[in-house]
């Protein structure tokens, strides 16, 4: 039996999993190198959401030290994700730079076309 309140209570996880899987699917299924990067970003962002939502405590306030506040949300996952976002940006930048170079070298950013060119090269080499 599906427990409806549980389902709603786990909403953040549903969002995370849907994002994660669609991102993952795009990375695998798309032949366009740029779209793959988009997919990769969605995949990573799902993890960011996962961490951030994990730190939230019901009724908790922003973690600013003040005598009036009793319950804080956990700031640590947020800080971690700040780092992870930086890493993600760096990865995306590097990936895009690589795609620019690939486009210059092959004249295309479609994976199947690149593979065809590479196969041809290998046949010539052998």
């Amino acid at each position, binding site marked *: 039996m599906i427990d409806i309140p549980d389902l709603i209570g786990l909403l953040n996880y549903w969002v995370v999993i849907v994002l*994660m899987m669609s991102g*993952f699917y795009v*990375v695998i299924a798309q032949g366009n*190198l740029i779209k*793959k990067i988009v997919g*990769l970003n969605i*995949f*990573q962002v799902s*993890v960011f959401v*996962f*961490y951030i939502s*994990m730190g939230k405590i019901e009724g908790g306030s922003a973690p600013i030290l003040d005598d009036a506040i009793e319950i804080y949300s956990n700031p640590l*996952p947020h800080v*971690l994700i700040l*780092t*992870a976002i930086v*890493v993600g940006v*760096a*990865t995306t930048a*590097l*990936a895009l730079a*690589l*795609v620019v*170079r*690939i486009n210059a*070298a*092959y004249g295309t950013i479609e994976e199947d076309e*690149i593979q065809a060119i*590479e196969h041809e*090269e290998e046949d010539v*080499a*052998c």
Partner: protein
Amino acid sequence: MLTSDPWLILLVVVPLLAAPVCVLLRNATAAWAVALVVSWSIFGIAVKLLIQVLEQGEVFYRIGGWDAPWGIEYKLDPLGAFVVVIIATIGAVVIPYAKKSVENEIQKERIYLFYTMMLLCISGLLGITVTGDAFNLFVFLEISSLSSYVLISMGQDRRALTAAYRYLIMGTIGATFYIIGVGLMYQMTGSLNFADLSTIMPAIADTRTVLAALAFLTVGISLKLALFPLHMWLPNAYTFAPSAVTAFLAATATKVSLYVLLRIFFTVFGEVDLFATFPLQPVLIGMALAGMFLASLSAIWQENLKRMMAYSSVAQIGYMVLGVALATEAGLAGGIIHLFNHALVKGTAFLAIGAIIYSTGAVTLRDLRGVGKSMPLLMAAFIVAGLGLIGVPLTAGFVSKWQLVTATLEADMWPLAALILLSSLLAVIYVWRIFEVAYLRDSHLAPVKIIKKLPLSMLIPTWILALASLYFGTHATLTMDIAHTAARQLMGGM
């Protein structure tokens, strides 16, 4: 408790700070000099730390003076110190070698970037090894990965670009899997410190969240480790990367990933009877065996030397994982000692291939005709490496095989022992294909032309690693003792 030891943090900080210096210098030779000084001083620090760890026990450093588990703690145990020495050694050997090799393979105005990335990569790999914090490890993992994508894309062939791109996609998926796993564990424990995690873990080990965390961590690291069948990125990346990069990555990157796997299995889950709780052993052994046989078979059919050795690496990773999967002290020691020995052997092989490329431009097997005659000293080193891959006595490979087979026999798994030996016979075939072309076949035809004389700065590093593999093949007591100490500690017997 020991106080903080600043040498530990220097290991990571020195190359990390030297990297931007190289960018500012914008000069190939100056950048090389910086990298050389850094890599050699790191080697010195690494050896010092290894001796210290073996004599006095673990070394700590607490970042910002915060105590663990709140602050990030760096910690070096025998296993970590051993891996640090491997990375530092390979770095110290590859940097001098790289000078001529890189001048030959990379455009002059980009060379300083090469050394920048090299230093970042070294820093990242060392950071992974010394850190005691799961998230910090992710950061270093990405530092080393991003710099290695750049390094690979610097290869001459345009296929280097696509290889780097593919590695980037796979590597990022692997790293993201890793943080998902870390996140799930954090959710359950509220801690990121390995030592702290290991004390909390027994209470929650049988929850589904932990099972999912373990699965994500294992798959993510296996991607970086190139464990069969997650190795698809590796052959092209190793084939098209600049020779010095291939040698460096082949000898260190996958080894460090194995180290992470060991940390997770035997430190984080150290207090849990991991292999009894989760069905890990049959899966790992199955993948290891598949890698040993299928990758070796692929290696046999390769015409490109670098690709042949790359597939051989995938097979050798299978041996290491097999040792780990036995989950006995002897098995772990086998995996750890193979990690060291294979770094020496494969490092030698790739350095030698790089030297052949430098001198003759040859990369395929048939271009090697008569190289044994025209470059006798270099090919001799290559043959030493080849024999090491087979595991012939007196080479380092023999020591690994000895320990792995002993471990399987001790665990009463003699069919595995037979399979290990059988698969090492496949190595005979691909090594001998090279040997025959280099020395024997068509010996009446003119040997391949030497375009450029091989500089000593490339020959000597190759031979240093070859001699090290011979030395540790005949005097294995030291390495065996370290591997056993590390394994005993992982198994919790200290």
